């Protein structure tokens, strides 16, 4: 039986759970409550949820009442198959270094509790992301550390009915840092340049970009939710050339995770990084100060802006580019204000 290969390893049950929560909940009965979505899913396999997960994964309700024994067996078999593939190098990566298996089974499982439990990300308008074909998601950028990108990736994957993988475009600094670059490549991120973006979009991937870059993520707390300049609007011409829709995305909550009240320019220059954040807790409390504040997040995807109606030479028209860039920017900014008005408090 080939099932052993497809039994998801770790926390897939919470992903499928998330997928089903939106839908009509097949099989009736045994629904995982949101509260069982898995504390620390990489290391711990709490016994209570195991039969549900295994039954769901196997797609058969036969062992629903057999108790935890058979569930454990399946999980172990799936885990060992995964382990064997990893240790013998028998898995595939794409030309960008994206390791889908590792991302789904391990990296997502690490990030998921952060998104579901810590920041309690609420996702709106997921239907604005097409189920197939390329799309360019343009989001605001904030929070001193690029956690918003990672949360966006989890949000798209877990909430979209087609479980689409978001391919983020990251700054070159990411690819210079050891360990970070390795993980970023494996998680499907690549360098924010027109060549890579176009290649991904033409391959029909959903690409995420945060055109504010360091200006957005490293802005002081007093300027929160004020969109910075959107670069030269290169993302618009890339979307135009690939003929994919632009999906504006507004992220609320990320601004307050590390309130940056100061910026030590000297230290930043010494370390060769664009800014050195000073928050009420960092660097005063050391590593403890690195803990983000548990704010409540909302991610809203807006109406897609189609780009396929333009002639091919339109991608070189600077006026059109500026207009479209402004349109995207305005839409994100408006949605941000709207979400902020609706928000009850920063933390709830």
């Amino acid at each position: 039986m080939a099932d052993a290969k497809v039994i998801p390893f770790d926390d897939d049950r919470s992903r499928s759970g998330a997928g089903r929560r939106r839908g009509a909940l097949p099989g009736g009965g045994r629904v995982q409550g949101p509260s069982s979505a898995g504390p620390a899913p990489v290391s711990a396999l709490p016994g209570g949820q195991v039969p549900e997960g295994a039954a769901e994964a196997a797609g058969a309700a036969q062992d629903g009442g057999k108790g935890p024994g058979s569930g454990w067996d399946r999980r172990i078999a799936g885990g060992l198959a995964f382990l064997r593939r990893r240790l013998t190098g028998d898995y595939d990566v794409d030309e960008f270094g994206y390791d889908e298996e590792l991302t789904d089974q391990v990296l997502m499982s690490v990030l998921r509790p952060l998104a579901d439990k810590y920041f309690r990300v609420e996702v709106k308008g997921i239907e604005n992301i097409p189920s197939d074909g390329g799309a360019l998601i343009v989001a605001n950028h904030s929070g001193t550390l690029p956690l918003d990108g990672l949360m966006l990736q989890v949000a798209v994957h877990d909430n979209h009915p087609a479980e689409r993988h978001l391919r983020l475009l990251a700054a070159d600094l990411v690819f210079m840092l050891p360990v970070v670059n390795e993980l970023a490549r494996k998680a499907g991120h690549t360098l924010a340049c027109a060549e890579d973006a176009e290649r991904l979009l033409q391959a029909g991937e959903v690409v995420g970009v945060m055109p504010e870059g360091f200006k957005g993520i490293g802005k002081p707390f007093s300027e929160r939710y004020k969109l910075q300049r959107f670069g030269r609007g290169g993302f618009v011409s890339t979307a135009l050339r690939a003929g994919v829709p632009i999906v504006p995305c507004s992220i609320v909550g990320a601004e307050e995770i590390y309130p940056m009240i100061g910026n030590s320019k000297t230290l930043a220059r010494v370390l060769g990084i664009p800014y050195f954040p000073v928050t009420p807790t960092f660097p005063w409390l050391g590593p403890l100060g690195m803990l983000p504040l548990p704010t409540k997040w909302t991610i809203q995807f807006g109406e897609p802006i189609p780009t396929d109606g333009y002639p091919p030479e339109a991608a070189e028209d600077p006026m059109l580019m500026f207009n479209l860039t402004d349109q995207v920017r305005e839409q994100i900014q408006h949605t941000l204000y709207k979400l902020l008005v609706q928000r009850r408090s920063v933390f709830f």
Partner: protein
Amino acid sequence: MLVTGAARQLSGRFVRRIQRDPGVDRVIAVDAVSPGHQLGDAEFVLADIRQSAIARVLAEHSVDTVVHLDVSAKALGAGGRTTAKETNVIGTMQLLGACQKSPSVQRLVVKSSTSVYGSAPRDPAVFTETTPPKSLPSGGFAKDAVEVEGYVRGFARRRPDVAVCVLRFANILGPDPDSPLADYLALPVLPTVLGYDPRLQFVHEDDVVDVLEIAAREPRRGTLNSGTFNIAGDGVLLLSQCSRRLGRPTVPLLLPAVTWVGTALRTVGMTDFSPEQIRLLTHGRVVSTVQMRETLGFRPKFTTAGTFAEFARSRGPGLLPPERVGRAVGRLAELPMAGGPADTTHSTHGAR
């Protein structure tokens, strides 16, 4: 047809192959040292392409096609890097000068390398033939290849009647390869750069010989075989995957330490662990092969993974053969209770 660098295994294979071609009358193989392998019916001329004597060889045999394969990272025999550089750069200059003077030459094929793109974190993930390198290779073979290509471009400008084909090969692997990366992969324990997992592409020797034949002949219908082409197998392997498939453990080292280890290894003559090699093993390099498929009309028989599997088979098992690892994992499953916790702790290792 004249083939340079005939004393190398790869050129030898190409010489033996091309003389079976009915459209090729005569093959003249040239090198500065006598080859240790058979060249079939080809005529071997002992000549150093760094000397102007090569012009006489060209004129004497009224050569119409020149296949320049003597562009390599490693020198044959003793001599090391200086000889290799001289052969690459001065040899190419002399050969191109001779070709320019020879009216009979109609086709030139040059073996180059994808290392001309360099390897930097700011580079796009996939290089096409037109991608300008963000940082030019500072030295070593990559710089030679850049200079060789520069001379070839100059030659193409001065002799527009000659069809020039530059083939940029990814890392060539095969049963008997002589590239620095193959030497590196033959180390019992692979030193790697901590925190980096480069993407690598390989091309099989059989495919190299095939594509050289396509480039050296008249183009087939609907294809064009002059220009610059990236040649690589499909797909990508990460260095971590390579080491696991070979069964050779890795030792992640900090970047400066890798440089020291490289220098030490080079000093004892084990392998050419040059700075550009370290850059490749840090940032990796992937090239687009769309031009190779669509313009040149060549489809490699081996994928990157297939090439690597062949190479791994020819090398024999390493310290941790994948089969044994697989069996060990299987034994873990048989342990009654240890399976659960053990697999999760291990998977975080394997995941890296």
